[in-house]
Structures are given as structure tokens and as C-alpha cells.
């Protein structure tokens, strides 16, 4: 988490408000499709690489039709990758049995499963990010609430999101004022850090009080009502059915393998 991240959140918010065919689809349909996509990708055996390739179609199409800049998603993907890769990188060292041979070189099972982890990571993360970029947090929350997400949690998620910018902005201003006063010393000492965080906490709690008073004076009674026409049209159903059948097909047949055999003539 860094300051760069904080600015990027604003970018995601802008993307969520674009008007495109994908953005106009119902949030529930997109959420269900994305979850189905992730589960399907994860259900492959750990050495699978080529059969996973067709799945890139889903994030690619969504990004393209939804006007989402791929570079933005890619950058987020790279920032998030260390943990999965750090755990996966041990596979090549632990599993040295040759599984595939290619032009005289043997590729061990460990490398195959490491590559597979990398591909899975790209697929699942880009699908999740694209889902949000194509939907926007408020529509997504409303949709999920219709699907049974507890209301308290949905409201809480939206409030958190709304005040993320405000509180983070406040924290950054406080941090800047400390930096200005600390003669170019970049990192905080523990005592300074504690009082900074403590004050930020107190300010946040005060803000919550004021927010509550403002909400009450506007008629808040413990429920946030969202004016959200959630109608499922034919195009939503078509989207869902189309992608689900693609997922099923790509799970049952190794489309990439078949294509490769067609082009290289192997196995004829």
C-alpha cells in the first residue's frame, strides 16, 4: 500500500462510471459470470498451461468492450503479483521431474506448475479487476445486496469506500506536515508515528460522529435506500448464458491444444 495506490483508486472510480455496453449490463450477471470464470480457471490440474489460454478471452473482451485501458489493469496485476509468485517459485526447485520435452530440452513439472500459477494469477486477478472497472462499486454493492449480501455489510462497504478518499487525504496531509517539519528525514520515528496515527484515529471518529448527525438530519433510520433499477434484460441473460457455455466448452476441451495440433500437424 502506498500513495500511488491511493490515487489509483480514484482512477478505478472513473472507469466504473464510463458508459459502455458492458457497463450497462446488470451487476449481478457480471458478478456471477466472473465468479464462475474464476472457479473454472482454478479447477484445472496444477500442470495445465495451454488449456488455460482460451480463458484470456473473457478479460480481454470485457476490457475491450468496456473501454478499460489494458495497461492500467496490467500495472495493478504486476503490483499485486509478489505473494503468489513468491510461493510458486519454490515449485521448480522441489519438483524436478521432467514432464514435457521441447526441442530436446526437458521442462520439469515444477516449472510447468509455476507457469501455471502465473497464468492463473493473471486470469483471476484481471477478471476481478475488470469486473469492478466495468461495474463500479455502488452498482456492484447494490447487485450483491439483491443476491443476499447482508445489508449492514453492503452499507458498510459503501461507506468505507466513500470515506476512503477523505480519511486517506487527511492522513496524507498530516504526513506531509510532519515531513515538512522533520528536516528532510523521510521515515517516521515510532513515537511520532503513534501520535500521528492516534490523532488520525480521533479525527476519523469525530468525522464519523458528524457524518452520523448529518445522516440523521436527513432522515437516516439505520437503512440506506438505493434507487437502483435492477431489471434483468434479455441481453443480460444472453451475456450470462454465452459466457457460461464458453467456460464449459473451454473446460471440457483443450481448445488451444486442438488448435496447436491443427497448425503443427502433430498427432495426425
Amino acid at each position, binding site marked *: *500500500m502506498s500513495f500511488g495506490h491511493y490515487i489509483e*483508486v480514484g482512477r*478505478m472510480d472513473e472507469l466504473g462510471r464510463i*458508459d459502455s455496453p458492458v457497463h450497462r449490463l446488470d451487476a449481478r450477471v457480471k458478478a456471477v459470470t466472473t465468479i464462475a470464470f*474464476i472457479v473454472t480457471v*482454478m*479447477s*484445472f490440474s496444477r*500442470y495445465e*498451461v*495451454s*488449456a488455460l489460454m482460451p480463458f484470456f478471452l473473457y478479460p480481454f473482451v470485457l476490457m*475491450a468492450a*468496456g473501454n478499460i485501458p489494458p495497461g492500467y489493469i496490467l500495472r*495493478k496485476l504486476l*503490483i499485486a503479483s509478489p*505473494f503468489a509468485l513468491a510461493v*510458486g517459485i519454490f*515449485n521448480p526447485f*522441489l519438483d524436478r*521431474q521432467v*514432464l514435457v520435452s*521441447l526441442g530436446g530440452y526437458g521442462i520439469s*513439472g515444477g516449472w510447468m*506448475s509455476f507457469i501455471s*500459477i502465473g497464468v*492463473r494469477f493473471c486470469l*483471476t486477478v484481471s477478471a*476481478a479487476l475488470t*469486473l*469492478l472497472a466495468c461495474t463500479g462499486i455502488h452498482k456492484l454493492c447494490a447487485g450483491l445486496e439483491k443476491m443476499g449480501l*447482508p445489508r*449492514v*455489510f453492503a*452499507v*458498510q462497504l459503501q461507506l*468505507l469506500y466513500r470515506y*476512503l478518499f477523505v*480519511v*486517506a487525504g*487527511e492522513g*496524507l496531509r498530516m504526513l506531509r506536515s510532519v515531513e515538512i517539519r522533520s528536516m528532510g528525514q523521510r521515515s*517516521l520515528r*515510532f513515537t511520532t508515528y503513534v501520535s*500521528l*496515527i*492516534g490523532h488520525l*484515529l480521533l479525527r476519523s*471518529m469525530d*468525522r*464519523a460522529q458528524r457524518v*452520523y448527525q448529518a445522516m440523521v438530519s436527513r432522515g437516516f*433510520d*439505520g437503512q440506506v435506500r438505493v434507487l437502483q433499477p435492477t431489471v434483468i434484460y434479455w441481453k443480460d441473460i444472453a451475456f450470462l448464458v454465452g459466457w457460461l457455455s464458453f467456460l464449459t466448452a473451454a473446460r*471440457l*476441451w*483443450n481448445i*488451444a491444444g486442438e488448435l*496447436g495440433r491443427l497448425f503443427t500437424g*502433430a498427432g495426425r
Partner: protein
Amino acid sequence: MHMADALISPAVGGTMWAASAGLLAWCARRARKTLDDKMIPMMGVLGAFIFAAQMINFSIPATGSSGHLGGGMILAILLGPYAAFLVIASVLTVQALFFADGGLLALGCNIFNLGVFPAFIAYPFIYKPIVRDTQGGSRLWVGAMLAGIAGLQLGAFGVVMETTMSGISDLPFQTFVLMMQPIHLAIGVVEGLVTAAVVSFVFKARPVTMMEPVAANLEASGLRRVVIGLLIATVVVGGGLSWLASTHPDGLEWAMGKVSGKEELKSPSTGIHDSLAKIQEKTAFLPDYDFKSVEPAASATEPAAKESAQWPAVSVGTSLSGLVGGLITLVLAGLMGYGLMRRAVVSPQNR
């Protein structure tokens, strides 16, 4: 320590999702019953506070590294376990959606690892009994330290368990445990220190704020039910998962093989017979999965098996075709996307 989708299997991810979702629903119901309306914006803003606090680092003397607040413990202290759990879950959801910090299917695991342990184990059973109602002083420091360490140790152990059960990483259980636990001991110490320092700061600066929160929410009876429920869930999950694991590493795949008889077809790129046997050898924690008995069943379902019989077992050709095919598909998918993008830009409706 956010789990990624790429490292867990659907069985593990799904189970943890179910556990976390159930707990979330239960907490939400409880929060609706017992919480003051006032707490709704408070929870949201404190969630945002946790984000902001995670952006700010302090330097740890003599190590050259830096630390920051994790947030689970401090939320539990300020809001009580139920509300804290909801806030932690929402923070993790936002992190997963906006920062790709932890995947969507792994969200269940993450909520469990980072939410349940601090809110329902470390806070009520370690922090509360030690600190009681004292405001600051050594009890607070000891309690927060121990609770911080315990919460993170349990969370790290959860990560190890989930990763090992999923069987996608080759890291042996023992190595992974020895890697994760010491790192998280250090992180836990930092978390405990920061939590204790911030809490005692707030006590000193404004004692009233610490009296008011929903500490009254914590009823022993309700909590006991959570813990018993968790225990039962653990046993069921542990038993269920190990049963799944001993049949086949991946329940869904196993089911698909049963249904379609096409399990053989799933990796034509690797030279069917010998490489599948190799995979079989490798996934040796399922010794009694009878590979041979599936084969005749598959050859009974005609076209798939016929084709597989025609394939030569020359693995060079088939691996190459797998690679080429993969590349072609990737390019094709990219081209389709590119074509759509062109159309999207041209179409006047957008923007």
C-alpha cells in the same frame, strides 16, 4: 499474507467462502440487533482509517525496515468483535477488488485468516482477560502484544494450511510453516506494539471515546456459540477436505471426469499416457486413486477415447503443439479484444 486465487483449489476456496459468508451473515444479523445506528458510519469511517493507517509507515530502528498497523486488533478493541469482523471483511473486500490484494475466491480464506483470529480468538480470549478494564499501563501492553502475536500466528498458520490443502504449490507443509511463522512473529510484535501504543494514546488524549464503544456487545454466551461453531466447522472442513484430497486433489475435476469420461483429454499437450502417469506419481498423496479403473470407463465413451488412442505418445510433438496452440489462442483472444476495442472507440454512443 493475502492469499491469491492462483494458489488455492476450488474446494478449499469454496469451503472457506462458505465459512466466512456464514459468519458474516451471523455477525450482520447480530450487529443489526444490537448496534446503535450511530455505529454504521463509525464502522465505515474506521474502515477507511485502517486503509489510511496502512499507507503510513514508521522506521524500525536498527533493522532498516519499516512497519505499519495491520488493524484487526485495534478494530476489535474499538468496536467489539462482531462489528470489527464486519469492518475487517469489508476492508479485505475493497483490497481484493481495487488493489488485487488477494483474489475473489480467496477472499473467504483471507477474511477467515485476518478477521476471525483477531476478532474472535485473540481479542476475547487473550486481550480481554489480560487487559480487563484498565486504561493503559503494562497490562494493556502485554495484552495487546500477546493478542497481536497470537492473531497473526494463527492467521499465518491458516495461510499455510489452505495452501497445503490446495496442493498447487509444491512447498512442503513443514518448510512453509517454518518460513511463515517466524516472519509473522516479527509482524505480530510490531502489530502488538502499534496497537498498544495507539490505544494508550487515545486513552490519554480522550478517555471518553474508549468508554463509549460497543464493548457491551460482547456477551459471553453469544461468543461461546461462535467459538463452538468454529470448532465444529474446523472439524467438518478438516475431515471433509482430507476426504476430498485422498480421493483426488481436485473435487471438481474428479466430478467432471466422472460425468464426461473426458478426464483423459484434459492434457493432450503432454503426451497422454506416460505424462499422466507421471502426474499421478507426483501427486502421491492420493495413493489409492485408481487411475486404471477410470481408463476403461473413458474408452467406453467412444469419441474421446478413440482420439486419445490415435495420439502417438511422442511427447515432443505434442508439447510443441500445446505451446503453439496456447500462443495462437492467446493472440486470437487478444485480436478479438482489439477488434472490439476499435469498434467501441468508433461507436458514438460511448462517452
